[in-house]
């Protein structure tokens, strides 16, 4: 009996491994892409597969931090994290230099997004798309012109304002309102921002994440902080909605494509990165997700309604006043502490 059972088990395991190993194809024909969710045009992957003959294994992550834990154990060929995470990956030596001979379309990448703080010599990363944080508001309800953050402290709109449930974004925008850097570690500046947020506390309906769009479309709230891509989607849904960036600058974020050290198909990965910067593809991605196009030729192909929207594509001087969020353990802990105090205050 014991023999039969163990034989049976061994047989079962054998069958399993046979079935499953059958799905494994040659790694040099596969490109494994790890991207944020809903951050690519609908059939872009299919077009890439058709054009290059590679097979794409496409996965999505909910946040940069989720991605960071996953890549520790699982090999991917292309990652598309945000600026501060690229910075961390480079610092921790988890990504490898790119061979730009395989990425000729790099020439289309807008100079504004080249040589960022996280990769000053452009060795490890190629920008993908970019976004800003700004105010989404309903122009039918908010009669004043919205051009800085002070509108969100106006008690005329008490109970109709949403802030982001995201430490760095909400804090950064408040610091910007006060004229400080979004990455400050100066205690007096941080204290000032904290009291500013405490003053605002009774006016706001809540600190929320993705519900902002729903609630402003439904009219439950009149304005809220959102990322530009999400604002674009909301504006497409209801035409009285507008998106504004504070005149004295905002937070902007660039997501970039990198190749991890553990990648099994570097050439395939570079071919994928190159494909993402084909002007038509870059335009398709930006048109469908509403996130900013980093490709100069792609930008020209976008519909006028998107390309000429000053919220989604602000003038260069506003961008120059804006900053990217930088992050390390010390900054994070400092901000988190004050954030918890604000959350606890009622």
């Amino acid at each position, binding site marked *: *009996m014991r023999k*039969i*059972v163990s034989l049976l*088990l061994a047989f*079962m395991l054998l069958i*399993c*491994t046979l079935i*499953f190993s059958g*799905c*494994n194809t040659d790694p040099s024909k596969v490109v*494994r892409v*790890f991207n944020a*969710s*809903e951050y690519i045009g609908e059939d872009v992957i299919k077009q890439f597969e058709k054009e290059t003959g590679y097979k794409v*294994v*496409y*996965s*999505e*992550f*909910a*946040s940069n931090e989720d991605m960071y834990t996953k890549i520790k*154990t*699982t*090999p*991917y060929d292309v990652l598309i994290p945000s600026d501060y995470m690229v910075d961390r990956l480079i610092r921790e030596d988890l990504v490898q230099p790119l061979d730009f001979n395989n990425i000729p379309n790099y020439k289309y990448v807008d100079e504004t997004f080249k040589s960022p703080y996280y990769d000053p010599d452009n060795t490890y990363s190629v920008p993908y798309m970019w976004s800003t944080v700004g105010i989404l508001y309903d122009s039918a309800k908010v009669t004043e012109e919205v051009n800085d953050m002070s509108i969100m402290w106006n008690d005329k709109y008490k109970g109709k304002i949403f802030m982001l449930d995201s430490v760095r974004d909400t804090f950064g925008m408040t610091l910007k309102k006060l004229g400080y850097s979004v990455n400050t570690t100066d205690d007096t500046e941080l204290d000032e921002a904290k009291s500013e947020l405490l003053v605002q506390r009774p006016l706001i309906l809540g600190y929320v*994440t*993705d*519900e902002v*769009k*729903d609630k402003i*479309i*439904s009219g439950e709230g009149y304005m809220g902080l959102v990322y530009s891509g*999400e604002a674009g989607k909301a504006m497409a*849904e209801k035409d009285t909605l507008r998106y504004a960036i504070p005149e004295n600058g905002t937070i902007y974020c660039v997501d970039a494509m990198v190749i991890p050290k553990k990648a099994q198909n570097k050439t395939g990965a570079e071919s994928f990165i190159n494909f993402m910067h084909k002007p038509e593809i870059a335009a398709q991605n930006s048109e469908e997700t509403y996130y900013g196009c980093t490709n100069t030729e792609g930008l020209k192909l976008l519909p006028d309604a998107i390309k000429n929207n000053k919220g989604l594509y602000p003038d260069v001087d506003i961008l120059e006043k804006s900053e990217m969020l930088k992050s390390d353990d010390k900054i994070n802990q400092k901000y988190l502490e004050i954030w918890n105090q604000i959350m606890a205050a009622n």
Partner: protein
Amino acid sequence: MKKLQKLYLYLILLFLYAPIIILIIYSFNESKYRVWTNFSFKWYIELFQDTQIMSALYNTLFVAVVASILSTIIGTIAAIGINSMKKWQRSTIMNVTMLPVLNPDIVTGIALMLLFYIAKLPTGIVTLVLSHMAFCIPYVILSVLPKLKQADNRTYEAALDLGATPALATWKVTIPEIMPGVITGLLMAFTLSIDDFIISYFTTGPGVDNLSILIYNAAKKGVSPSINALSALMFAVIMILLIIINVRTHKATKKA
């Protein structure tokens, strides 16, 4: 009093089913956002065209079917073995089996992830099935053992006396007797596997997402209403299955 009883019953039922009813209503909403606009079947059509959701559904069902069948086989055999052990041996083995049940999912998940990493097993559908088996087997054992205790050992001995080999006697006598427990174990393993998020999240590999992982990843930017449509369909299928089973058992008891 009678009316109060009924009212109470309906209130509790409403409390249990209200979330599902809301979800089903919103699956017919034309807008992508949580604002009611128009009645439409749009999301049902999009659901079947959405390759991501379809492949996640396929992964979920595939893993659930394979993992639940394999763990039922292994678990049943284990339960038969445990049942015929000496007392101290049995209690040691039972404690070892209970541990994964009591262990928080997140610990099991991370432990399995590390194991696969050290064993150099590429994560994917294989590791997903293996880890689902790891947490399903104890439940199968736990649902089969009580049936074995109830079973009369003398019928098995009678089969041996009549010339059956132990294997044949187990197959022809013991297994049919404990079948209800085996089926319960199978169904439990199946539902646990479909439900699981935490362990799957840590043990899956590139390109292999199940439904719960897909929903989690999309939650930050707003989950597509196609998911509502899918949940509504799954709810309807389970409802119909339950009604059929109930009607059949009702007929069977009437006949008897």
